[in-house]
């Protein structure tokens, strides 16, 4: 039996065109041995949820710099839930005011990463978020 890999979807919902951060994160996760599905710019929440389903990912990482996180994030989470994907962890990166963090966390966002976060910290948070799940998959 092959060693299960952590599968991550990195997506940029909304209309801002800045994907450098998303690409850096994708690269760091790859270098940590994860399989990263990168979907590119301007994804709708529907596209993201559908890709997460087809790819059976463990984590969805959203990069939002437009300020629309309080609209986009709950929509993605609602769609994931509708599909029966409650087990999927959602992480958020970008320009997120501190005041919004508690709201996002109470929605179930597993991690919020602002500018200046080291890639090592992000990799660690991603690994920790899925550890119990990957172990469960191994045990069957």
């Amino acid at each position, binding site marked *: *039996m*092959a060693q299960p*890999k952590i599968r991550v979807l990195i997506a940029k919902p909304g209309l801002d065109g800045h994907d450098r951060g998303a690409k850096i994160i*994708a690269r760091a996760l*790859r270098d*940590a041995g994860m399989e990263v599905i990168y979907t*590119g710019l301007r994804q709708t929440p529907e596209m993201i949820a559908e890709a997460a*389903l087809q*790819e059976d990912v463990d984590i969805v990482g959203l990069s939002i710099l437009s300020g629309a996180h309080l609209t986009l994030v709950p929509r993605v989470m609602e769609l994931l839930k509708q599909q029966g994907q409650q087990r999927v962890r959602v992480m958020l990166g970008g320009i997120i005011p501190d005041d919004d963090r508690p709201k996002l966390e109470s929605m179930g966002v597993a991690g919020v990463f602002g500018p200046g976060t080291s890639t090592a910290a992000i990799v660690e948070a991603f690994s920790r978020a899925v550890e119990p799940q990957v172990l469960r998959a191994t045990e*069957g």
Partner: protein
Amino acid sequence: MSLVPPVLAGDRLALARLLTQLENETPEGLQDFSALYSRTGHAHRVGITGAPGTGKSALVNRLAMELRSQADPPQIGILAVDPSSPFTGGAILGDRIRMRDLSGDPGVFIRSMANRGALGGLARTSSNLVAALDAAGFGIIFIETVGSGQAEVDIATTAHTVVVLDAPGMGDSIQALKAGVLEIADIVVVNKSDLPGAKTTLAALRATLGLAPAARNRDSESAWTPPLLLTSATTGEGIPKLAGAIREHRRVLEQSGEWMIRERERVEQEVGRLLRERLAENFLRAQPDGLYEEALRKVLAREASPGTVVEQLVEGAVAAA
């Protein structure tokens, strides 16, 4: 819990989970796969291969759109393989970026896959994932290989129809294609016809192909001559023609009996590989502790060649250290 009933009922999440299980070769996944296997054999497996940057993903996107816009459209499965890092085992799977037009179509299912170190252009378990999509009712399955040039020809046994892509400005890729990948082509495509130089590439390929038909088709019963087509995934030029050629190839394969010959080749290769792996595994498990290590040590110390120690292992002639 078995995923077979929901997969057969069209549950996409169950299918996605099964594909993960098969990729990880879990015992439950393989058990479900056995239960589903009798449902396979209906899909047309179409391989899309070519050098990196020739536009494989974009072409698959356009082709799938074309097929889905026709009357009585088939359900389309897409398996897109990208390379894993040989150092970390991680991967960036980026083929979906070019397939965004297919999002929201419930008749299309796209799955990205890392090759996890396999060298033939596909992953070890790709064929099983394709078979699972087949059992789930997808009528056409596109298998997009890792960008490849010369020897990545696993797709020849996995697919019924192999489409080989080239693009203008790839320089010596024509030379590279000559030896390996072009030989397995059932359809040759020069993509990016909207770019300058496409006609030159087409002419060069025509000259190469004109010297001798691809080896795979020369010896076959089907008398199929690989067509050479010009497409643009950007403008859509030539896409209906390519879709037509893929359909026509299936018809010719079925009529000539070549379909069954290719199925047999694939089955023979899959069963043979599993048998070899299983025998080697059983053999090693039955060896006393340390014997295999001792054999490796002998080769490292240049006391014996790899061939000799294998011979000795099989003959039971390696003494435990």
